[in-house]
């Protein structure tokens, strides 16, 4: 391991600490439930990928669940979310039904994007999830525009923009942070810093590996957060979202996390040591929270087992829903390239 601060063991992250304050059983179990739903859903997706039910690219979020779950807790229903191609967790944590997400993985027309997008392009007008963006950095300008629309219309919404450390090397990252700060726009930039842009480690891509420093250079308040601690993420995100909602401009969070699985299903992981992965797994956000809950007597083994059963049942149902779903008729191939002359009632965007 290098001596670079970004590469330091996660325990050294100067995170917002929450570990010993006011955790109720309900809250703790809710967080655990959300993270478990993502973990087990994706484990099932990996299985279904091997079975040929899910095709294309599949990028798993396993290990990073605390980020989406903690951050989504801070948002209101009318806030907007822009995510990346590793967004199953965001979609689940945002409240889109697992059935529709799984149907999207299959490419069935019951999927949340009618099967048109697949794993990388989960969209949902109802919860204002604007993708599922698979061009690294490409979602940031859209988030800036969504926030601009809210500001111009005097709506008190916040746009949560998720992206990875890889996006920080893109020009759009710098343009977007600059514009959001310049125009005092209500965006929370949530950098899911898992240390690798695909297979390129942060210090092999960045001259400045402290990402908060980059954000601060645009006069954006920025903090590192322990992205393996769901409560730390939740608290940092809540503070950020609340502050942004007041109208003082964007905030940046460097959420330090780690991807336990390969980048995609085609990745032989030649670029990192197994020992590094094992080291980070010691800080598995699900195991950590489970231990906390048990140690403090907030959850029993029976309760935790029941949670697993509930999640497993939900997944079985989602798989069945996807299996039972229909393939979009080929006659519909050209549908929705353009908006039909008599627009259907769409999302909050232009179709309205």
């Amino acid at each position: 391991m290098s001596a670079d601060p970004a590469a330091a063991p996660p325990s050294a992250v100067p995170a917002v600490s929450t570990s010993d304050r006011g955790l109720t059983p309900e809250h703790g179990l809710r967080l655990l439930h959300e993270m478990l739903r993502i973990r087990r859903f994706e484990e099932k997706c990996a299985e279904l990928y091997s079975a040929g039910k899910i095709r294309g690219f599949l990028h798993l979020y396993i290990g990073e669940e605390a980020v989406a779950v903690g951050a989504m807790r801070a948002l209101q229903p009318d806030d907007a979310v822009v995510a990346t191609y590793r967004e199953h967790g965001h979609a689940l944590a945002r409240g889109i039904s697992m059935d529709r997400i799984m149907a999207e993985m299959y490419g069935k027309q019951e999927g949340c994007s009618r099967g048109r997008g697949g794993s990388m392009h989960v969209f949902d007008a109802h919860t204002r999830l604007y993708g599922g963006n698979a061009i690294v950095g490409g979602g940031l300008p859209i988030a800036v525009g969504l926030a601009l629309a809210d500001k111009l219309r005097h709506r008190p919404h916040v746009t949560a923009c998720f992206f990875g450390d890889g996006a920080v090397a893109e020009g759009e990252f710098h343009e977007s942070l600059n514009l959001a700060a310049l125009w005092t726009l209500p965006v929370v930039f949530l950098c899911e810093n898992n240390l690798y842009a695909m297979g390129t480690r942060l210090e092999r891509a960045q001259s400045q590996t402290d990402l908060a420093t980059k954000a601060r250079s645009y006069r954006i308040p920025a903090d590192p957060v322990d992205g393996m601690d769901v409560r730390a993420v939740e608290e940092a995100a809540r503070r950020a979202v609340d502050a942004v909602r007041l109208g003082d401009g964007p905030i940046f969070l460097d959420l330090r996390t780690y991807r336990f699985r390969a980048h995609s299903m085609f990745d032989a992981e030649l670029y990192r040591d197994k020992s590094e992965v094992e080291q980070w797994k010691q800080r598995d956000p699900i195991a950590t929270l489970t231990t906390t809950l048990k140690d403090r007597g907030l959850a029993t083994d029976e309760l935790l087992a029941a949670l697993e059963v509930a999640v497993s049942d939900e997944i079985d149902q989602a798989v069945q829903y996807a299996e039972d779903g229909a393939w979009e008729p080929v006659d519909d191939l050209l549908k929705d390239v353009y908006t039909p002359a008599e627009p259907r009632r769409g999302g909050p965007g232009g179709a309205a």
Partner: protein
Amino acid sequence: MGTTTYREAIRAALREALVKDARVFLMGEDVGKYGGSYAVSKGLLDEFGPERIRDTPLSESTFVGAGIGAALGGMRPIVEVMTVNFSLLALDQIVNNAATIRHMSGGQFSIPLVIRMATGAGRQLAAQHAHSLEGWYAHIPGIRIVTPATLEDARGMLWTALQDPDPVLLFEHQTLYNMEGTLADDAGPVDLDRAAVRRAGTDVTLITYGATLYKTLQAASTLAAEGTDAEVIDLRTLRPLDMTTILESVRKTHRAVVVDEGWKSGSLSAEIVARIVEQAFYDLDAPPARVCTAEVPIPYPKHLEDAALPQPPAIAVAARELVTRRV
């Protein structure tokens, strides 16, 4: 009827849109205090204020992407990109996002965005400010491409484009901004669906758009003096192509020349010729011809720039060859 310019006609269209729809705003490089690099938006900042006439940093990708986001958020943004060459910095947003999101989201989100930009050569601006890449954009499903050539279209296309629920790219040829003419006092929105026959004729169909319309009309005058009656079609919209108007004309004249400031290789002119051949092969009396820009980056010196671009004599030569060819 009043005398106006192409520039003023677009400004009048911008003003109309800003007055009529509170969701409309204009953003781009130097559209505000500077008054627009081609002075199109001059005076609008004073009239509508900085919230609606927004100067942006030189960040094409992000301000175009912000236009997409604002459209998703319920606004009706007009984004000005200084020239088509600069729009390449925003190609990711235009091609990967604006053109795809409706389809990729299963029809959940439309993007009612208008992107205006200057295009074309003729002002000795060399190879990074003078290309005609609108035909490239016409390759992309999910967006609409319009090219106002007349004062009526400069005045009328913007409002119609804003009513389109999907992204529209509007290309203004930079040699047209100073074009003067008269415009009806009640000039207003025009359709974006049909090509226009700018000169009716019976012997050969000349198909063009944008500023080359005028070179083509000039060639048609030369041909008329020789007794050849050319029909001139202004495409107006490059995507979707109005093949009905094109084919009606070709079936009448049996000869077609496409005149395009884009290059020939892999181009819009190639597409039009292919469709004519596919759909009207047995109506043709001669192989379709093309007059396009020479396959070089646009050079700076005037004589070389002139030589690179389609010019009236070359258009007339191409038409003459088809008319005199005997099958």
